């Protein structure tokens, strides 16, 4: 099941956390949002999305709550916990360090 852009493990976590940092979202909306924002480059595979959501919840970075969806159905909404907000910040700066370092290497070599 290789998709055009397979996400590196860990990167998906970062994308999920960043996406729900704005407002609580359900799984489908998270996938949609990531695809739309990345101009269809990042296609999140459901087979990876839901295990990732459950893992993050188990690790208590995010929490879930059942709520009314935009089409008036019950959906599971995920939001960041306080620990998750800190974790996101740390991961973001990690990512920036890493990508700028890679950029540096690519440019110079």
């Amino acid at each position: 099941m290789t998709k055009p852009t397979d996400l590196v493990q860990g990167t998906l976590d970062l994308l999920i956390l960043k996406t729900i940092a704005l407002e609580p979202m359900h799984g489908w909306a998270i996938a949609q949002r990531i695809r739309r924002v990345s101009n269809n480059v990042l296609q999140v595979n459901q087979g990876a999305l839901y295990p990732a959501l459950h893992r993050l919840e188990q690790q208590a970075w995010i929490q879930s709550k059942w709520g009314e969806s935009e089409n008036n159905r019950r959906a599971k909404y995920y939001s960041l916990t306080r620990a998750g907000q800190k974790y996101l910040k740390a991961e973001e700066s990690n990512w920036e360090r890493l990508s700028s370092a890679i950029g540096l290497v690519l440019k110079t070599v």
Partner: protein
Amino acid sequence: MRWVQTVSNLFRSLLRRNTVEQELGSELRFHIDRQVEENIAAGMAPQEARRAAVHEFGGVEQVKEECRDTRRVSFLEALLQDLRYGARMLRKNPGFTTIAVLILALGIGANTAIFSMVNAVLLHPYNFHNLDSLVRVWETRGMEEGFDARSVAPADAADLFAGTDVFQNLATYRDQTFNLSTEGNVEPIWGDSVSSSFFDVLGRGPTLGRGFAQSEEQPGFERVAILGYGLWQRRFGGDPGLLGKTIKLNGRDYTVVGIMPPKFSYPVPSELWVPLALPAAEKADRTQLTTMALGRLKPGVTAEKANVALASYAHRLEQEFPKTNAGRSATVLQLRKELYLYSLPLFSLLQIAAVFVLLLACANLANLMFTRMLGRQKEIAMRTALGAGPRRLAQLFVSETLLLSMLAGAAAVSVSFWSVRLLRTSISVEWTKWVPGWDGIQVDSSVLALTILLAFAVGLLFGFATVLHSGRVGLGQTLKESGPGSLTRSRARLRSVLVVAQVIFALVLLVCAGLTIQGFVRLATMYEGFQPGGVLDAEIGLPKNIYSDGTKITAFYKQLLHSASAIAGVKEVALATNLPASNVNNDMTPFTIEGRPVTKTNEMPSADLLVASPDYFPALRIPLMTGRLFSESDNDAVERVTIISKSMADRFWPGENALGKRVRLGAADSNDPWMKVIGVVGDIRQNWWNPAARPTIYTSFLQSPRNGMSIILRVESNASSYAAPLRDVVRQMDAGVALVAIETLKTQVVDSIGIIRILGILMGVFGLVALLLSSVGVYGVLSESVAQRTRELGIRLALGAHPRDLMKLVLGQALKLTGIGLAIAVPVSFAVSRIMAALIFGIVSADFAVVAGFTFLLVAVALVAGYFPARRATRVDPLIALRYE
């Protein structure tokens, strides 16, 4: 608080599995439905839209399984499964389970029961706030002194408090017996006169009323009293109206100003406190160490730091007041450790013995477990063949042994509840009232925690031992075999080692038990030398306010001796300041020998000091070696005389005649008069913790009168019936004087060494358990080995071996195992008994007979334990044995 949520998520997944499953299902369904809507909106036909959505999603069940995996409950689920399986296995083998649980429960229970004593008596003797910063403060005179001689001079105490920066607060106090009279009835009460800071230092105040004011430390203002809760309930029915009323103590009126809370008693067993009002002259006194002191250290000041500061300040006092303070230093000791001098070795010994019992039980159980594992080799091989990894197998065994040890832990808790109750009820209050913390002996949370910890540790240990033991199961070999599993050579050796270990533990424990019991018997018979059976004793405290000088005191006691000897049936009457087996040390005093001046105070010789009446020695059957005893004419008007003990004569006048030599109490230039040695008497043992013979100086009660004396009556028979006549005599002389602690000397002796008896009994129980367990261990290994060798034995028989040879073969194995164990254990026992002798005041001594006796006992037990398997070996039917397998 991230972990809180993690754990609660974990529990939710574990305990509410159905809900979690449903939620997972509807979450994924919602996703697909939402995609269907989206597809329809994009213009697809409904059916096509659903097909596309489902296709895009992929395997729903696969996603679900991955989600479940993230919840990490698979480990726990497997654990639950293993526990259930373990429980089933244990239920299936009730015999094994019962024995294993019993063995472990004995081992763990012994430890928790002893720990409950250690916890109360050594670790939490008092329930005062911040106990670790409370210290006893006293001055040392450069000689070895007992725990009840820890006192300070009043002026020094004040200086030590003001001059050093270590105490937050300091209190002084003096033990005192009060004669409390109500309606013509005089009751002696243990109590203390205390400085007004006393209750502040302890951090406990009265529950009713108030503490003492500083103004009440002035002589003339001290007629106020605080009562202990127990006394208040017992004598005054808990009447709250008692506050403000007066009670009669030592014939004077005191106003009750406070009632202390229940269970408060310091120093034990006090029940009454009055202000310590010292006259100005006594307050400024440095010559005598007359009061006790109790300090609260400042936060951050440890006992070590305080000791350094006090020593250097005491040095300054030494230079400032050389006449009184030369050779004196000051020291502190945490209140908790007040009685460590004797409680620490006794209880440590018990705790170590209990640990030995546990180790023995573990060695024993290990053999049982390994035998059982043999029967399960097939199961293990099958599990391995079916794909169970080493980790999964380990988890299986560990959960099984944990279950077993937890059961044992639960049984151990009831064992300790039961034994603690027994301990507390079986020991005479007369002894235990002097032991702070004894009332606190209970199975509390820390004892329970220790039980659980021990059970858990043992369970884990056995689990992993089992895993290691069964680690290398030859798969094909085991599955092919049709008989029961067999021992490999290395495993058989391991089991023999375990048996040898049991023999070692058993002998060491038995020897310790034997020596303790021997020590108790020896102590008891030594005190028998006084023939305590026909002696009644009591204590008398003449109130200082009425009996204020020597003439009045001697007049009273002379009259008392006269009247008491007139009681029909009384053979001898005598007085002494302290009696043997009183559990109180004698006063110790430095002294000077005429013609041998010592310049430095701390190099002065010292001896026990006892004031006695002439008949003291005959009444207690203490032999006169040379010279004469005191007589009525050795009174105040003539030259001072003294009688010394044999050990004193031997120490200071070796090879010389001590008679006629002169000694004086204190330094060469002290004010005490010279005393001529007129007699030498035999040594007596004062208390069980004292060495057998201590240099002792006896003086006559006529020449050095004391307010407090013990009276002894040697009577024809039935000593306890003389209590009433003796009390009558005293009442007729002075109704305000009470007799304290009237009992027969026999009771006193038995009570005073009660703790040694308890030690002996507990050690004896440990020894018996050790004997039982190790014999079961020898039996188990031999029966196992006979069962393993059935075939070999059958061949031997078929080839013409005589049954007697087989008997010898098996018994020889038993003797070999025991012999190796004993060869190691005998020297170890000697070493241990020597350590023990050093620890508990020479009560026990390494004794060849005891070691030899128990060695033979163990050999005999091994032979008996080996006999049954050996008999089975001789009855092997060669035909069956050869057909077997």
